[in-house]
């Protein structure tokens, strides 16, 4: 065995602090740039989906559109409507953005990087409570929206804020419950440990597909994206919670939305798609840390995360918005019970496999969990659901109601036309 050099050992305290500051700055810069370009990606992708060109005037392929938008928002007048609660009106956009950003602190984005002064983990803070920290921080995201709605002194903004708080509380529970299964399989809450577990047992999306599904739906609701963007439903609420905002303050909400999407995507990738793990290979997980390995795993993590972001955008231009009661019944009557039942099934499966002495890293464990998952998936989507629960818009009760209304209007219109003759 070759002697270990300094680049493979943990760094000294001082260098650790220095490296942490550098990592924070790097992540912040990169994050802001990516978020800015995600706003452009949204416009470009929506254009392609609707068979348009999208922004293409500023810079090559419209790439400088982001800078132009930023400049425009800085130059715009900041309006301050009468009777707003000023401190909170100004604080709210910042709050909305901060909670999305600080959740990044615990997300591991690459294999450890060797430097002459010691090995650096590519995560800002590898907290032992990892995932709980993420849950705690994302649960604060609602404050920005709620306070913006309340302090605006506008009934539509207030309604948007109320909707948002109710929606986020409802889906937070389903989200937390769906991740319990991941924590059960990993046996730890540190995100580094969860990524390591996925390297050993295969990605969680293959053995916990239903948890991934619930998490994805809840993440859409938590980030207020279509089909759950009721807090800013423009046909009902003007622009919802940010109706009274203008200039850079409005822009902060705009940035916050994409920041939230990026954070939710990174979390989804870390929990269910193996984090920075490169699929079908082993060399990236074993052996000493090298610079090549770090760079490639970071690129892999970026690729996975951004694919997920593009999925978010794709969904936005594909699905219509839910009605508010549909949103609530989906959250409380379907997602939550499903997550609870799923926890019981996964926990008993793991208990049974552990009692039978099946090693967690072996093929027997993967095969057993995978086949249980397959059976449950078929049961959920083809036997239990059959297009009723997951799409409440087409639920049987609703269809009957629509048919009744249609019959009533049909009768009335035939009566009306009869009178006209």
């Amino acid at each position: 065995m070759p002697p270990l050099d300094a680049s493979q050992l943990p760094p000294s305290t001082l260098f650790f602090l220095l490296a942490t500051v550098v990592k924070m700055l790097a992540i912040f810069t990169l994050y802001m740039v990516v978020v800015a370009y995600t706003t452009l990606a949204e416009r470009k992708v929506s254009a392609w989906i609707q068979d348009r060109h999208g922004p293409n005037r500023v810079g090559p392929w419209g790439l400088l559109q982001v800078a132009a938008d930023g400049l425009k928002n800085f130059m715009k007048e900041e309006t301050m409507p009468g009777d707003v609660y000023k401190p909170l009106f100004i604080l709210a956009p910042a709050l909305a953005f901060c909670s999305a950003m600080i959740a990044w602190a615990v997300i591991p984005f690459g294999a450890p990087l060797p430097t002459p002064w010691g090995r650096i983990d590519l995560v800002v803070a590898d907290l032992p409570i990892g995932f709980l920290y993420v849950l705690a921080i994302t649960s604060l995201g609602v404050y920005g929206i709620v306070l913006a709605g309340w302090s605006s002194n506008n009934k539509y903004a207030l309604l948007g804020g109320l909707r948002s708080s109710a929606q986020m509380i409802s889906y937070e529970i389903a989200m937390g419950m769906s991740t319990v299964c991941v924590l059960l399989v990993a046996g730890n809450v540190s995100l580094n440990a969860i990524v390591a577990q996925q390297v050993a047992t295969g990605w969680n999306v293959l053995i916990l597909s239903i948890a991934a599904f619930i998490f994805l739906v809840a993440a859409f609701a938590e980030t207020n994206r279509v089909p759950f963007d009721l807090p800013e439903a423009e046909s009902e609420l003007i622009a919802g919670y940010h109706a009274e905002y203008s200039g850079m303050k409005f822009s902060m909400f705009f940035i916050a939305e994409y920041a939230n999407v990026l954070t939710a995507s990174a979390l989804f990738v870390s929990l269910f798609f193996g984090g920075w793990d490169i699929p079908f290979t082993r060399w990236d997980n074993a052996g000493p840390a090298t610079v090549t390995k770090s760079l490639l795993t970071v690129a892999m993590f970026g690729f996975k995360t951004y694919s997920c972001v593009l999925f978010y955008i794709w969904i936005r231009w594909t699905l219509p918005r839910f009605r508010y009661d549909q949103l609530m019944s989906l959250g409380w009557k379907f997602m939550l019970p499903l997550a609870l039942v799923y926890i019981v099934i996964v926990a008993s499966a793991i208990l049974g496999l552990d009692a039978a002495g099946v090693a967690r890293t072996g093929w027997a464990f993967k095969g057993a969990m995978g086949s249980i998952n397959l059976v449950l998936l078929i049961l959920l989507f083809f036997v239990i659901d059959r297009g009723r629960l997951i799409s409440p818009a087409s639920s049987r009760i609703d269809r009957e109601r629509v048919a009744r209304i249609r019959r009533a209007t049909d009768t009335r219109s035939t009566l009306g036309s009869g009178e006209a003759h």
Partner: protein
Amino acid sequence: MGNVFVSLLYGFNFYLFGLIAIASALLFVTRKSPVAAALWLVNVMFCLAALYVMLDAQFIGAIQVLVYAGAIMVVFLFVVMLLNLGRGDADSDMRGSVGRIAAGAVGLALLAEVMVLARSRFPEELTLRAAQGLAPVDVTAGVIGPIAGPLFNEYLLAFELTSILLLTAIVGAVLIGKKRVTDAR
């Protein structure tokens, strides 16, 4: 050199968060608007969570933020907003000077009680002997296990009884909040 720096940082942060917590608590009880008061309370909870983390109780810190700041206070705000309280001075629930003096006296009495209790010795039955164990926690092996282990093995009955108590409260709340269909007709 590094260790001295870290311990300095530790001390600085301890007093920083302690002072912010006290200041926020004072602002919390003196604000007239319920929304502002609720937000100062959230700030107090954050500082408490930071202090828990500095005592290496990271799990409790995270739960503090998750449950109190992230869930309970959001529901508080939700109710305040739904009733549209907190605008103007008319709906302030501040009492007159008698009430303020009484509240201050009760607060001082409680503070004195805490001071006395912190300095006094507990009876032998109440102290936790070293032999009973609070084993040192190995952070690398996870911080949840040492809490979950005793909770689901030794104290399972108490844990389940607590959850049944909570369930009863939820059922009660739903029953009280439920619209009576017969009355509406």
